[in-house]
């Protein structure tokens, strides 16, 4: 398989499949071969399901040949973070605790992807229970960054980011409770989106923190991201937080450009509240200039301090996660990896009043953000404050993991993206960076990040930027 085909975007591949210029069976076979050849280096997958994938690809090919093309995802390979249920397959959450935990039914997002004709390739690495990682003390090794396998690939949707950067599949799902889609997106140089809270059903997805959990698309381009969101978004009565709102045509907004768009830049997150790596700040400034040059109106906006969002979010996360894990922590503490155990124990001694005060504070923060967003269409800020550090550098991991501006939008529930740099020059120098695009007036953030390694898949990601700005 040529590298070009491995890194072809979902939208382009869908058109080739629809026109019968590319066979889903050949495509899936080629991707499986690529995974077999390279994944031992990157550990993106926990479980590969080749027989199931080939069977689904054959069925899709038969349907398409017979003129029953279902849409852009028909015959399209995808993979799922291993906290998302697939009937008959284990959902392990990358933990010994859930080893052999076979799902009895699909998660709602799985149902929707399967109904659209998607071809599941397998289940992906995650930080343990979407909170503790990267870890070397679990039944499976941690995913590594395909740009440089000695470096951290972000998390917790680590396999999703690594697999996309490695050209293993054109789309994956991740989950995001404090930034777990956007962190690997920025570290791996792909596009990751945390939709609005309630937009995508959580039923059948292992919870981390009920009121902060989001499921969202991870792809290499913005266009592909919209195609996946189109399929997985929508009301689900079995999820008590699901929003009963109509789903717009996301693809229809992609070619509108940014002229006249009002962009608020949340500079204080990365210049005052936390001091971002200079290279990160420089590239983000460059992104702002490019948006301005393309006709957007940019201005600085001020929100509450980043540390306030972090504190509020972490208190809520710790309390809700402990509610999920309390019994296992009491009975099987030794079966967690060290990182997950320590992060989950943070909720053990929290008082009910602290949780409730944090939830009430959350409303104040939400209202202040809403007021700041009254006169803008979207906001732009940093995602990660630092380049991807080495995966074995415990000190850097302990520091860098928290130096981020992603949690604010889990606290508010606004949609947030992380994607690639604003200029070809920046992209060549640093493969992982990002900014934000609107899906609706309520849109929010995203970011930039960099890593001193050679980019792969750069053209596809730049194309995603050009899709929006051009």
């Amino acid at each position, binding site marked *: 398989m040529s590298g070009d085909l491995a890194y072809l975007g979902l939208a382009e591949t869908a058109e080739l499949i629809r026109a019968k210029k590319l066979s889903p069976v050949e495509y899936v076979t080629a991707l499986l071969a690529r995974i077999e050849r390279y994944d031992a280096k990157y550990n993106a997958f926990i479980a590969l399901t080749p027989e199931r994938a080939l069977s689904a690809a054959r069925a899709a090919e038969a349907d398409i040949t017979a003129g029953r093309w279902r849409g852009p995802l028909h015959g399209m390979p995808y993979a799922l973070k291993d906290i998302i249920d697939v009937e008959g397959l284990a959902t392990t959450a990358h933990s010994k605790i859930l080893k052999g935990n076979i799902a009895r039914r699909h998660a709602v997002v799985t149902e929707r992807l399967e109904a659209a004709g998607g071809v599941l390739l397998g289940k992906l690495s995650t930080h343990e229970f979407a909170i503790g990682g990267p870890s070397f003390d679990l039944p499976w090794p941690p995913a590594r960054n395909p740009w440089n396998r000695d470096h951290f690939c972000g998390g917790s949707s680590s396999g999703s980011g690594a697999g996309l950067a490695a050209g293993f599949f054109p789309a994956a799902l991740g989950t995001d409770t404090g930034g777990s889609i956007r962190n690997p997106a920025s570290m791996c140089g792909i596009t990751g989106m945390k939709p609005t809270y309630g937009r995508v059903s959580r039923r059948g997805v292992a919870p981390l923190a009920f*009121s902060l959990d989001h499921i969202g698309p991870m792809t290499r381009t913005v266009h592909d991201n919209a195609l996946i969101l189109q399929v997985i978004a929508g009301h689900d009565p079995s999820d008590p937080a699901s929003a009963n709102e109509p789903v717009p045509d996301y693809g229809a907004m992609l070619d509108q450009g940014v002229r006249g768009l009002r962009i608020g830049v949340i500079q204080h997150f990365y210049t005052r509240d936390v001091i971002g790596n200079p290279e990160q700040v420089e590239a983000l400034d460059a992104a702002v200039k490019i948006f301005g040059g393309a006709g957007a109106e940019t201005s600085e906006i001020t929100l509450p301090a980043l540390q306030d969002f972090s504190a509020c979010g*972490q208190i809520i996360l710790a309390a809700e996660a402990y509610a999920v894990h309390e019994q296992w922590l009491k009975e099987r*503490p030794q079966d967690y990896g060290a990182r997950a155990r320590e*992060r989950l124990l943070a909720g*053990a*001694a*929290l008082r009910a009043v602290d949780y409730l005060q944090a*939830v009430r504070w959350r*409303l104040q923060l939400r209202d202040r953000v809403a007021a700041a967003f009254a006169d803008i269409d979207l906001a732009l800020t940093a995602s990660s404050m630092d380049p991807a550090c080495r995966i074995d550098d415990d000190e850097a991991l302990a520091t860098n993991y928290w130096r981020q501006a992603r949690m604010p939008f889990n606290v508010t529930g606004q949609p947030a993206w992380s994607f690639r740099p604003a200029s070809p020059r920046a992209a060549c120098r640093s493969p992982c960076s990002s900014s934000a695009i609107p899906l609706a007036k309520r849109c929010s953030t995203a970011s930039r990040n960099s890593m001193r390694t050679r980019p792969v898949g750069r053209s596809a990601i730049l194309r995603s930027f050009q899709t929006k700005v051009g």
Partner: protein
Amino acid sequence: MTQELRDKACALGLDRLTEEHLAQLERAMTSMERHLKRLPRDIQPAQEPAHAYRAKGGAP
């Protein structure tokens, strides 16, 4: 680990934690203290959280 921490863990039902786990618990609680210090103390008494209880099926 101090006996105080061990007692606290036991009171929480965490009586199977090893010395290593207790050290993790201590670090986790210290980290959480930093967040708790930022909690505002001036929230109005009548301000409820967003997920105030809703009866199923609505009011009769």
